[in-house]
């Protein structure tokens, strides 16, 4: 091995033994282009080399599943011949370097994943994590990321229907930007990415290729962030939603006409990964002539063309006689389309520059032969995360309530949602914050009923207890669906963790995946696909382990989807479900500056599922006026939220438990529901699940007598809850 090659492969993130394995597979040393391609294909981002073994624990079978992990997006059957494709993906490191473009291209990328399987994108949700809002850097990242998500989603005409954001110290240097997209398709129109048919043409569609995003998968996505991040800015891609809008409409028309044999988006690692994955799935080879790739700038080298992450590009395989038809449709949509290669029987990815072969690699070596590593998990002896700073000193329940409502994690998300279009497409039946899950009707697509979707993942709870914290995230997502009467069909996940080569991070990852697997099995919900984002660390240590889960469900009658807010004066308030409140690790404990615990209480998953079933059926039958799951902040905060969402007060008496702070603010995510309706409806629900009748809707304040004597005007609740406006100047 020559000295220069040795340093080069290490710079590209390959170990010496990985380099030796590459030489063995090639039966020679790789040239510069081949080394660049291998370094990307064998990066964590593309090869999942530290997570693949673990992910096999997750359930991937279910009665509604149409397309499971491995495709650009998974899909479930929602009846009437319709499929919903969906996936969540991270764009964390690019967003930490340049939040606007990082978040915008995160949305652009996940949209391409969904239309690559032949589905029209119909909704975006986002999951964001930043450092404490008191930090100027966090406010800068928040502002940029929200503007970037809005810019892309609004401009391309896909509604942003939901999302969540948390502010916690460990995300200060390493923010998280996860975007989820849902698409709709006729079942028979779903298309896979496997290249097929020797002699068929490989056509590159969309934007020209430039030097943006070179090495993004290895430089940004598979290494820790350091101090010289500004110098990584050229690795962040630039988004152009107009280009993607044309590409989207063009691809959907081509699919409708049955012009394409397969379709694949160009994401991380650009042409290298998209072409080798298509070839691998189709068990074929590909010849690509880089001299045919339309370029944005002159003098690009062959390896740069192969690894560029320029946005808004798709790769398809067509039969040669379909080329004219493809060109006609592309011209109509003003989309560039260039044949750049062909399918071969060689099972090799050959890169040509005109007549010269500049790279020649076995497809199997690129896609399947990256060594998989066993994690070496070890539980830390004590909590590794520092206690948050104490912000709240009052013991008065009314003051505690107002402080919680005003805290960045619980304040109204309206300043974010107002920057997104939630309506385009005319499917949105429940807008952001109107209900616990977004509800999208299917009638314009020839379907019946509606789908519901929610995204969740509280990293601080997972930091307290990776197993039960992850169980909670799954339960809470399912509880959100239950509130609108939807039955869960499938889940997508994005595992945002630190450096898996560190034993305590490996332990977090392993416990978290185990919790997710057990919760999903208990609920009978499969994973349809997802994404792993590791190495989310900086000088300050790892982020909170953050598995983000997005769940899609189906409901029969969108008109019956219960809102979160109280609706009717005189309605009875009930509190039901499987709820054992616990203060350590809660939002109140955070504001009080308490240490994170090292475990959370276990749950009886069968009982939780029974509670979800009961609420879902009551909502589906149209019996309840409102339903809201009791999540962060505990029961009193949930009541205040239902008052605010419905713009009506409530009187709560008697209180279900005795220990005031525990029952007012203790948490047990995903198990408890606050419902309202007629006394008869609430009594009927009580026959199905443990339920306490404890109040009445009405008035213009939130009143409780026992255990806490408080009376807070709606206007004061609203003012406290509106604190996030200040962050957007």
């Amino acid at each position: 091995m020559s000295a220069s090659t040795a340093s080069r492969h290490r710079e590209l993130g390959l170990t010496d033994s990985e380099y030796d394995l590459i030489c063995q597979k090639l039966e020679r040393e790789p040239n510069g282009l081949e080394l660049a391609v291998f370094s990307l294909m064998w990066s964590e981002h593309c090869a999942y080399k530290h997570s693949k073994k673990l992910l096999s624990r997750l359930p991937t079978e279910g009665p509604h599943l149409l397309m499971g992990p491995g495709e650009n997006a998974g899909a479930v059957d929602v009846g009437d011949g319709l499929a919903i494709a969906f996936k969540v993906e991270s764009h964390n490191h690019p967003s930490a370097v340049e939040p606007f473009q990082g978040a915008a291209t995160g949305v652009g990328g996940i949209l391409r994943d969904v239309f690559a399987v032949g589905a029209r994108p119909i909704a975006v949700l986002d999951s964001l994590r930043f450092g404490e809002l008191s930090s100027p850097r966090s406010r800068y990242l928040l502002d940029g990321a929200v503007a970037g998500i809005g810019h892309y989603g609004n401009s391309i005409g896909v509604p942003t229907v939901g999302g969540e954001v948390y502010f916690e110290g460990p995300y200060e240097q390493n923010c998280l930007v996860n975007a989820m997209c849902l698409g709709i398709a006729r079942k028979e129109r779903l298309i896979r990415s496997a290249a097929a048919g020797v002699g068929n043409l490989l056509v590159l569609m969309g934007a020209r290729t430039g030097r943006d995003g070179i090495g993004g998968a290895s430089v940004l996505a598979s290494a820790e962030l350091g101090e010289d991040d500004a110098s990584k800015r050229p690795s962040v891609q630039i988004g152009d939603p107009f280009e993607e809008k044309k590409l989207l409409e063009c691809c959907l028309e081509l699919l409708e006409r049955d012009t394409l044999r397969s379709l694949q988006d160009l994401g991380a690692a650009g042409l290298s990964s998209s072409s080798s994955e298509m070839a691998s799935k189709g068990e074929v080879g590909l010849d690509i002539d880089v001299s045919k790739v339309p370029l944005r700038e002159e003098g690009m080298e062959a390896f740069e063309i192969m690894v560029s992450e320029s946005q808004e590009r798709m790769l398809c395989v067509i039969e040669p006689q379909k080329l004219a038809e493809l060109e006609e449709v592309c011209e109509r949509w003003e989309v560039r389309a260039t044949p750049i290669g062909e399918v071969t029987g060689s099972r090799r990815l050959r890169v040509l520059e005109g007549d010269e072969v500049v790279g020649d690699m076995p497809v199997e070596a690129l896609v399947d032969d990256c060594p998989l590593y066993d994690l070496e998990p070890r539980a830390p002896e004590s909590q590794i995360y520092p206690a948050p700073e104490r912000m709240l000193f009052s013991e008065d329940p009314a003051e505690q309530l107002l402080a919680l409502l005003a805290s960045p994690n619980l304040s109204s998300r309206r300043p974010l949602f107002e920057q997104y279009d939630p309506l385009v497409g005319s499917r949105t039946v429940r807008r952001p914050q109107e209900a616990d899950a977004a509800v999208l009707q299917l009638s314009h697509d020839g379907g019946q009923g509606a789908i519901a979707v929610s995204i969740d993942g509280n990293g601080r709870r997972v930091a307290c207890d990776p197993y039960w914290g992850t169980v909670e995230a799954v339960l809470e997502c399912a509880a959100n669906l239950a509130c609108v009467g939807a039955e869960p069909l499938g889940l997508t996940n994005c595992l945002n963790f630190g450096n898996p080569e560190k034993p305590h991070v490996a332990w977090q990852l392993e416990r978290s995946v185990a919790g997710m697997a057990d919760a999903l099995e208990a609920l009978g919900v499969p994973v349809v696909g997802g994404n792993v984002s590791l190495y989310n660390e900086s000088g300050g240590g790892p982020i909170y382990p953050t598995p983000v889960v997005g769940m899609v469900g189906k409901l029969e009658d969108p008109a019956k989807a219960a809102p979160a807010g109280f609706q009717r004066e005189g309605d009875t308030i009930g509190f039901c479900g499987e709820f054992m409140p616990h203060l350590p690790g809660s939002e109140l404990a955070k504001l009080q500056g308490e240490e994170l615990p090292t475990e959370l209480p276990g749950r009886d998953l069968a009982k939780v599922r029974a509670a979800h079933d009961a609420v879902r059926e009551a909502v589906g039958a149209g019996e309840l006026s409102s339903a809201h799951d009791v999540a962060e902040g505990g029961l009193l905060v949930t009541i205040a939220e239902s008052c605010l969402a419905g713009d009506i007060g409530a009187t709560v008496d008697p209180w279900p438990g005795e220990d005031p702070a525990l029952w007012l603010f203790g948490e047990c995510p995903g198990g408890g529901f606050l419902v309202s309706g007629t006394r008869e409806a609430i009594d009927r629900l009580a026959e199905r699940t443990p339920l306490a009748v404890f109040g009445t809707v009405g008035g213009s304040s939130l009143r409780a007598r026992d255990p806490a004597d408080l009376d807070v005007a709606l206007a004061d609740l609203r003012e406290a809850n509106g604190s996030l406006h200040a962050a957007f100047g």
Partner: protein
Amino acid sequence: MRFGVVRFPGSCDEVDALLACRRFADAELLWHGDRDLGGVDVVVIPGGFSYGDYLRVGAIARFSPVMDAVSEFALAGGPVLGICNGFQVLCEAGLLPGALLPNAGRRFVFRQVEVEVVNADTPFTRSCTAGDVLSIPVKHGAGRYYAPEESLRELDAHGQIILRYRDGHNPNGSAREIAGVCNSDKNVMGLMPHPEHAVDPLTGPAGGACLFDSLVAHVGQLVAAA
């Protein structure tokens, strides 16, 4: 009675407008590259980001072939409704007075707003009564209506201000709380709120329905007269 909804590259709400129109009459999409409006009775220029709204909102779309036909149609008295980006395009095309500037808050804003019908004596509002309050959503980054003070006075005097944001509902800093205006012949109207997203009670308040109702009544009367 048939609506035609123009589709530019980058239009986003054209299918929404089509679905809304079809609740009231027939409707079809019109392609930006065609100069033929296919005999439609009303043209709707929908919301979105035509041609990416690069250069300036609405600035490129006005040069597309279909806009030549739309201009002729409008000059002959045909009713044209521009929604959001469509409003911006009609201003750029000179079919409506004034311009739409970036929102005063410098951010994209989605919000359910209340607008008041100022003039009910137009093809777009004849089914309403002056003073009616309509709840309709807005969603835009450049919706701040601007015109020189003198033309604002003229618009007011000639009844060309059709819709106004109610007190506290102006989402973008529009001059004189203007949400929708028409040309002096009152057959071309632009508005920033999205009436096509306010026709189905399942998805929200249906404050936009009266605009479509009005257009159907207007065309019906023209047909009856002819």
